């Protein structure tokens, strides 16, 4: 994927000019991969090497790779949406709670009854609508209510999870809608539907961020909101759209989670905010906004999921896994900084 060419094209609109970025873009496809994601690719390859050495065929098995992708799908979809919000200069701490609320709302007995009698898509739309609704609330509070994103989404985190607990009465709601289960259990040419949805979301996300006006505006708003406003961008409306987009991603994630676990529960999506932010940040997206890459985020998600898989294959504990996760965040970011500096000079 040729990301730098795309970002270079938008550089003029994204606030302060970035000479380094433009220069790197000239180096073309290979240079682009080296400039941004080499650290991540190296980390992922290293992990895979460790996996093959320690677990051999069990790791390199097609089924195992599909398992990793399937596990990466849910958090991956959330992380793609999170890339937009962070690139646009925001942050969203409420994604896990929104996933929980969407999953609970979409699996109430009433929704399930409608889904059975009418069509299972009504269950899907419920989850998407709830996710989008939460996103709109976040966006409006931040853009028009002028509440700091950290605070507004912190409030949503508490409120959405609480509402999910009230709606579900803290019980796990089991899904029994035949069409829904059949659709999401299926595979196309051996690739699970869940994984296809994740790939679609990532591709659409990449196209939108790098090839559309919406994407250019996102970089602009994140880079320098005042400059973006002067350039004629409706910054407030754009902010609301960004959070809504992430809300929809949470809705999609909730659907995938319902399909995977056959349940809706107020405990779903625990710590997703941290996992998604970690994936986005090691993916090279600036927390301060203005720069972000979908490919980096996808690599970030794959690294964490593969890590957990390799650890389980070797019978290692969750605690050791957490230590390794911390180390990988630091190593990947350090590698990226080194390589980026070399690329700039």
């Amino acid at each position, binding site marked *: 994927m040729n990301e730098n060419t795309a970002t270079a094209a938008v550089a003029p609109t994204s606030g302060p000019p970035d000479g380094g970025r433009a220069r790197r873009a000239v180096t073309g496809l290979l240079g682009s991969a080296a400039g941004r994601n080499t650290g991540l690719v190296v980390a992922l390859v290293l992990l895979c090497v460790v996996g093959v050495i320690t*677990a051999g065929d*069990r790791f390199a*098995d097609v*089924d*195992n790779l599909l*398992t990793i992708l*399937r*596990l990466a799908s849910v958090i991956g979809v959330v992380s793609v949406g999170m890339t937009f919000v962070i690139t646009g200069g925001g942050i969203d701490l409420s994604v896990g709670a929104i996933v929980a609320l969407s999953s609970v709302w979409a699996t109430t007995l009433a929704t399930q009854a409608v889904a059975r009698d009418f069509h299972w898509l009504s269950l899907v739309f419920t989850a998407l609508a709830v996710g989008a609704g939460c996103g709109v609330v976040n966006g409006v509070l931040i853009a028009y209510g002028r509440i700091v994103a950290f605070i507004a989404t912190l409030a949503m985190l508490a409120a959405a999870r609480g509402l999910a*607990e009230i709606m579900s*009465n*803290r*019980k*796990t709601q*089991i899904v029994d809608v035949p069409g829904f289960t059949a659709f999401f*259990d299926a595979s196309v040419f051996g690739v699970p539907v869940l994984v296809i949805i994740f790939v679609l979301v990532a591709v659409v996300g990449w196209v939108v961020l790098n090839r559309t006006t919406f994407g250019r505006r996102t970089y602009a708003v994140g880079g320098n909101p005042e400059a973006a406003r002067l350039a004629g961008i409706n910054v407030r409306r754009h902010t609301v759209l960004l959070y809504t987009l992430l809300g929809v991603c949470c809705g999609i994630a909730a659907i995938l*989670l319902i399909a*995977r*676990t*056959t*349940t809706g*529960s*107020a*405990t*779903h*999506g*625990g710590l997703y905010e941290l996992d998604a932010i970690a994936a986005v940040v090691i993916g090279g997206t600036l927390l301060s906004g203005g720069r972000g890459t979908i490919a980096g985020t996808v690599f970030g998600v794959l690294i964490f999921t593969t890590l*957990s*898989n390799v650890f*389980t*294959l*070797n*019978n290692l*504990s*969750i*605690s050791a896994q957490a230590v390794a996760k911390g180390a990988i965040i630091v190593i990947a970011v350090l590698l990226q900084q080194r390589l980026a500096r070399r690329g700039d000079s």
Partner: protein
Amino acid sequence: MSRNRTARAGVIVAILATGVALTACTGNTPETTTQTGSQGGVKVANDEPGKKVVIGFSAPAADHGWMAAISAAAKAEAEKYSDVELKVVEGTNDVSLQISQVETFINDKVDAIVLLPFDGAALTPVALKAMKAGITVINVDRAFDSPFAARSTVLGDNYGMGVSAGTYVCEKLDGKSDAVVAEIAGIDSLPLTQDRSKGFADALRECGLKVNNRVAAEFTVESGEKAAANLLQAAPRVDAIWNHDDDQGIGVSAAIKNSGRGEFFLIGGAGSANVMREIKADNGLHKATVVYPSTQGADGIRLARLAVQGKSLGDLVEVEVPRQIELFAPVVTKDNVDRYLPTAFES
């Protein structure tokens, strides 16, 4: 010893000898067994209305099925008695908030406090304070650090759960020395999970088996699915899986279904009604579950009332309520499921 446990696998409540904390030499063997589940229950003289008892009840957040059932059963139990007034505070996983809840009970001068601490060690000081203030503290499920912090303690048998599950695996895999056994544990940092795992490993050792693959989840459906999906990749062939918790078991079952595997049998943990119905129908991978009673909060209420009124337990010769009661962790199979289904919790 392990055979023995299964043989007794019909008893929900096993009451052991008194004074464990006071005299270390006292035996731990259940002498009297009653079939009086805390629900249903036989009508005894103890149930006659007596002196009015105000009981404060505090437990962790009801964030999953078992814990929700604990509080619900405690409230239902209190309502059975006209002489009990129950004050319930909102369940919390915040240790300092729970401490302040207990302090409020002390200030309110309740007669007794039934406390299921989020963390037994952290709640010990405030429980000591309550006891010093003359309040009868009944400790439920997670033990305090000090024997002086509670008048009486009701404990589930986490180690015993592991032993029961391991013993069942040994029986089912009788003679299969190369069998692969997997374990999906709960939260590894909690002593209760460590105890369950130790019991399981100890019981398997008795028949020459060991845990070949082990993962820990977090007691949620989602974590159960994740952990199981990875575990099934780790082990190309499995003969038996013990999953510590039936709530996360919903996720475990989903992962197994996704993987299309089914060469093994599954043992649950805690004993949810969902799993028991599957065991009864005998159409899934769940062949058994190990009960960890969700009624022990209700037992705490009963004990608090009796202790304050100076009575003892119905079937004991003892004059006072015992110091400690350890509940039994029976294996529920198709053969005895009807017995346990009525008191099981919906997850």
